[in-house]
């Protein structure tokens, strides 16, 4: 393993200037559950690792209608907060699913996002909760929707000297529900063959879909916002039949490959199954009988 400089940053300016100085030879360290494994596995070499856990904005977790999750907030803090769990169920499904308890006490949703794997459990729920990321670099701060953040396997929108500060989720509308499910051959400690997050907002009767958002994991080079399936659901009656149709549409938006974890055919099929199942679960939550 190539030796690297460990830089504990205490504020954003320090961190971004270190990133700018080392360019792509530096990375941010939050929980380290991906970074340290990748370094030891010699996936890449770094000259500097910038520890962000002492930067106040990165460990902020604020619920004020909307939710701000600092980029280095560990998963357990998110799912152990009952108010967050009630308002943002899709996030909780993922945060309590990533790794085991030890991993969840270190790993962050922000890190999951920056690691940018197509199979990330954390990204799709952020997409369907209409998450927006805040990014700061030496030239200032910008924002973008989560679904635009990943650009390829292990690649994302962060430019040279930029870092993720936080993820901001708007306050859910009334009659909103969300869910994330993944398929794994085992019951734990595994990586998604397919993951699907669904969010749904029903009308006051609880029978009609006002709007929906569906996102797919492990079926393309990035997590995929299933736009057509999402748009199809607006105005539809919330029935399993409708959801099965949405699943079929979502399946056409997936572009999976065959690998050791599953085949193309199996993954298309699982997108249909999990889209239907997450929509059913989201609706149950929207109706308040989760």
């Amino acid at each position, binding site marked *: 393993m190539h030796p690297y400089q460990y830089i504990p940053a205490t504020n954003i300016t320090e961190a971004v200037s270190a990133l700018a100085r080392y360019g792509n030879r530096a990375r941010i360290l939050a929980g380290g559950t991906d970074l340290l494994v990748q370094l030891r596995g010699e996936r890449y070499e770094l000259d500097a690792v910038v520890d962000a856990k002492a930067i106040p904005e990165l460990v902020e977790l604020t619920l004020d209608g909307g939710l701000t999750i600092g980029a280095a907030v560990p998963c357990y803090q998110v799912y152990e907060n009952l108010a967050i769990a009630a308002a943002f169920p899709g996030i909780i499904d993922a945060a309590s699913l990533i790794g085991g308890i030890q991993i969840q006490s270190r790993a962050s949703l922000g890190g999951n996002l920056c690691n940018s794997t197509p199979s990330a459990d954390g990204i799709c729920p952020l997409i369907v909760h209409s998450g927006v990321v805040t990014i700061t670099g030496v030239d200032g701060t910008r924002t973008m929707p989560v679904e635009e953040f990943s650009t390829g396997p292990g690649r994302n929108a962060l430019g040279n000297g930029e870092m993720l500060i936080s993820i901001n989720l708007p306050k859910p509308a009334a009659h909103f529900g969300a869910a994330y499910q993944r398929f794994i051959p085992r019951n734990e400690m595994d990586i998604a063959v397919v993951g699907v997050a669904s969010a749904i907002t029903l009308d006051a009767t609880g029978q009609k879909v006002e709007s929906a958002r569906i996102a797919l994991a492990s079926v393309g080079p990035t997590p995929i916002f299933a736009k057509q399936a999402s748009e199809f659901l607006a105005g539809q009656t919330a029935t399993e039949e409708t959801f099965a149709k949405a699943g079929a549409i979502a399946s056409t938006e997936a572009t999976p490959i065959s690998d050791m974890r*599953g085949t193309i055919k199996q993954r298309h099929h699982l997108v249909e199954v999990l889209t239907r199942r997450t929509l059913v679960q989201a609706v149950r939550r929207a109706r308040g009988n989760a």
Partner: protein
Amino acid sequence: MTTTEKPQEFNVVGTRPIRHDGVDKVLGRALYGADIRLASMIYGAVLRSPHAHAKITRIDTSKAEAMPGVFAVMSGKDMPLVASGALDLGETVDDTAFTSDRIMAHSKVVYKGHPVAAVAAIDSNTGLEALKLIEVEYEVLKPVITLEDAMAPGAIVIHEGLIGSDLGEQVKNTNIAVHNRLEFGDPEAAFDQSKTVIERTFIISRAHQGYIEPHASTAFWAPDGKITVWTTTQAPFGVRKTISALLNQPLSNIKVTPTEIGGGFGGKIPVYLEPLAAVLSKKAGRPVKIQMDRRAVFEASGPGPGGTVKVKMGVDDKGKITAATADIRYGAGAYPGASIGAAASGIFACYEVPNVRVDSYDIVINMSKTAAYRAPGTPQATFASETLVGELCEIIGMDPMEFHLLNASKEGTRRPDGPLFPRVGNEGCLLAIKGSDHFKSTLEPSAEGKLRGRGMASGYWNGIGNKSSVTINVNEDGLVSLIEGNPDIGGTRTTIAMQAAEILGLPAEDVHPAVGDTDSIGYSDLTAGSRTTYATGTAAIEAARMVIDEMKKRVAMIWETEYENIEHIDGMFISKVAPDQKFTFKEAAGKLGQTGGPVALTGTVNVRGSGGGSFGTHLVDVEVDPDTGKVEILRYTAAQDAGKAVHPSYVEGQFQGGAVQGIGWALNEEYYTSEDGVMINSTFLDYRMPTSLDVPMIDTIIVEVPNVNHPFGVRGIGETSIVPPAPAVANALADAIGARLYQTPMNPGRILEALAAKQSGK
């Protein structure tokens, strides 16, 4: 419990004392292979081949040698290839030349991960960086990965020097190391006369033992030629013999200390790192430690072989087996030695088969050499035979339990490889399952539309006896130290101590067992073949009897009477002539100094055979999600013959552990390998062993049909439990989904395909 005669009475055997090694393990004090730290020790790292098959055209280590912090660099020239010869490791016999070449490549690499060079450096990171400075040029050859390619006429030959044996005839230019045949009766004629005959072909993936502790070895080659090795192994005396043969050093110059071992299952019988650490140590003049990482363990140690097994079976109109044949083909990996012998003798061992033929093939391919894996070779073969029996029962409309009972092998039945069974527990296990709550329960349908099914299968493992030594030292406080030579992978330290305690009349806690190094205990064969509690236990009984005999002499001296007048009853020495004269063991031990000095005695044995082996029957309920193909194990019961369970908790643990490993083979474990022979899923993330959340509590039933070959009736039980699970699960899945799978792993993708094929009527 099923017993057929009045059982012996025991005080210690059959109880459940706290394990002697428990506290050290719970507190993290136990020293495993990687925990060895010696003064001035340096760290080795191994450069491994990226290719599965290539000629080495050039190795230049000069840059690595010049790197600061590097003490020594070695390659094949520093460990010259030794001549071909027999390397008898107790359970198996390897070839010295192949072993030498497997551990460090010489002119050619024959598997991905094959060592081509190694360094020793001040720390492991420096060592890993130094590996990057070693230049190796390869002429890449086409790898031979599939059995079809390996066996095809005109196949690329992996080892020009390999002389194959085809039914005893020598064959050159071949990848088929061995083709054997067992045969009696006339199967073809019997098939012709049968009411029903079916034949199926099964494919089994190679599967890794998945022990938590990676291989780790430390060696110090002193200037006087003495080589000391600390290593995680099942076979310290085998390590000594292998180092002696490969490095051409006198056997007695080598001392091997087995460390605590974090799992073996057969995979820690072969030598991998020890000779490399020794050669590097000689060059550097310091102790050298080498550890594998998990990828090296998966790619370059020895999993159990995969292969194909074709089975044919015929029955008459009553469901009685008329004949059976099998064609077993295993991929040995880069050197010969897949466990085809046990596969052939085990495949029909559960049945009375009047006409039988079993062909078996040991085939060399460009993957790491396979090793023993719990009942080596037998789970693969039995997956085929027991799944076929499940389907045959469906076809003839017979309950599988009745089929098993009708056809069960028993005392006097001839096993396909010749021996007649002595008294064994096959029927006992079947009846134990038949009488279980699980068997009598009704499998309720799922409320959520999932598919449920139940299946059963039996399995057999013979095991071995062989050579063991146990030394008992009587301490002056009346406790005893027991030294044995078998690394403890299954609780054997305690079960051996308990057998000694039984004879000595002491509680198990008063016997302090330790696993000795090769200088401090007499020769002991490896911990394998379900032999340790059985054979080394026999040596412990022998040693304890010698101790009691000697102590009776000492007591006779004190009481000034004849040896014949001393009895040893319930731990007390009693005079027959003066009944008020009594010594406890402790009292007698305290007087040894006055009666001739210490009592330290060694029992040695060479136990012939296993006494018949251990049968097991497993019953499983599964649930399948028809939308995803995911399988849940709902309920699982394992019954097995232990002869006499020395420590029932350990016996239950072995039944459960084997069942869980077998469930892993059944459902998800496989070597997902590229066409180039590269294992792609060489991590615990993607090599999917069951976790604690994937299996229910495994219920166990200990059947006790005493082993005529052991003083207490003990049978070796460590391995049988991995044999029935895969076919039991296959039969349960067939019951659940109404379609059959003929390939492991029976993973969700394959189950979905089977369901889809069934729906489309194919």
